[in-house]
């Protein structure tokens, strides 16, 4: 096994445990925003799409990479904005008393 693969597997396994640990006590009211937020986070494929688009040689690769960049950008930008719009709704009314934050 190459060192690169071993490193990748290490990161993968630790991130998998962390992902489960992070949300194990989330209240039901945040399920939708959380799904939407993590949805935006897997838009990180944009990084991969950019690397491919920046080094594509053939027309086919360029076409595939271009669509991948568009798709991934929609995922990232749309995902974060929609999540923010949802969470904005949780703002309290100014005339309401402050509650425990």
């Amino acid at each position, binding site marked *: 096994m190459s060192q690169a693969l071993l490193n990748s597997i290490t990161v993968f396994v630790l991130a998998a445990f962390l*992902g489960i640990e992070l949300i194990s006590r989330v209240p039901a009211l945040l399920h939708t925003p959380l799904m939407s937020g*993590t949805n935006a986070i*897997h838009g990180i494929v944009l990084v991969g799409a950019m690397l*491919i688009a920046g080094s594509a040689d053939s027309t086919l690769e360029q076409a595939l990479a271009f669509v991948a960049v568009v*798709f991934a950008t929609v995922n990232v930008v749309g995902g974060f904005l929609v999540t923010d719009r949802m969470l904005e709704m949780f703002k309290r009314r100014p005339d309401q008393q402050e509650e425990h934050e």
Partner: protein
Amino acid sequence: MILAVSQTTINLAYLAAGVCLIVGIKRLSSPSTARSGNVVAAVGMVIAVVFTLLSPEIDSYWLIVAGVAVGTVVGVASARMVKMTAMPQMVALFNGVGGGAAALIAAAEFHRLSPGSGHVLPEHMGAMLFSALIGSISFSGSMVAFGKLQELLPGRPLVFAGQQVVNGALFAALLGVGVLAGATEAGVWMVVLLAGALLFGVLLVLPIGGADMPVVISLLNAFTGLAAASTGFVLENTALIIGGTLVGASGTLLTILMGRAMNRSLANVLFGAFGAPAAVGAAATADGEAKSYREISAEDAAVMLAYADRVVVVPGYGLAVAQAQHGVRELADFLERRGVDVKYAIHPVAGRMPGHMNVLLAEANVPYPQLYDMEDVNPEFPRTDVALVIGANDVTNPAAREDPESPLYGMPILNVDASANVVVLKRSMSPGFAGIDNDLFYRPNTAMLFGDAKDSVDRLVAAVKAA
């Protein structure tokens, strides 16, 4: 290359980005910090993207700039214009394109690395095939989910005889095609794999009823995360592995939590064909005898509410569609002014997604302390004078508790039928999203107030003011 930046610097930046994503998810899981969590995650994303641009591997920028420009315009426009009620299908759409991107990256890398000479590392080949397969399934599955929620496709399950056998055979065939693609490194097999996976995604989601869609979207969200992580193995990129795996793992857990809220296992959701046509037909024609229900006028209902001590409002998707949440709050305000105790009962899957209803009521400035979870409010119903059910259906169906034959049997419900009186605001007698008739409507203590939820609520407000 804009600047000379070493790979070490980029990897350190990826580490910082990964930390931001982790802190972001952590903050997203608590109400008071959620909004800042989303911002922190977005900052992490910006760090990852900016340092990727500085990578020595990139020798041309025009495709990236053009793609990001187009994607930003589309993403901003759709996120800004979507109504709060249409949020679930928007999430499905964004999830689908993410999966599509992962599959396309895999296809492009396959084309670049595989001239048929067999010098592709097996781990790279395996990860590419995995990304292509899972990414495509996530793409087409999400599109079908979007179509169902947007009502472009019928919301009820589309089933045909032997469907599960066909799906099983197709999946086995896809694994075979994957092996062939890996062994021969021939582009044609990659194309067959992508096309077959797209078809599989469609067939996987078509038989799933609208009511189960949130669970499916959450599952496909986890799929896209894994596909993204897998492209990280192909490109040996830590940022991709961290981001993708976090979503893959947390998405899987979230899917299980949602399934648990509906008392349905994942296998049951995927293969159970919730509200299958046979069951619906049986319920609708119930021994050929028309069941009778009682209709009530807005004025009578308003009097009942105005002179009650305890009222529980049970909001559902119908309320959201009619944009009646502001009217409901107004109604609650008037009732409270008269000394009526008003609570809101929120079923874990009210609306189209867990937590969707909380978002919609928060939009209408309904104070938090009035929102009650199912477990907390169910013991209250026997002491409740009027349960006001607005556009909710399946989550109040007593058949889920009483009728082992019902497809809903076992799903935890709000026991509104235990209240002294139930007033159901509903457009007509048509069955709910799952396509199942609701016994509640035929109970002696239930009265139906027909009409658009917003109109009905406005009439109630006017009548309560007069009462």
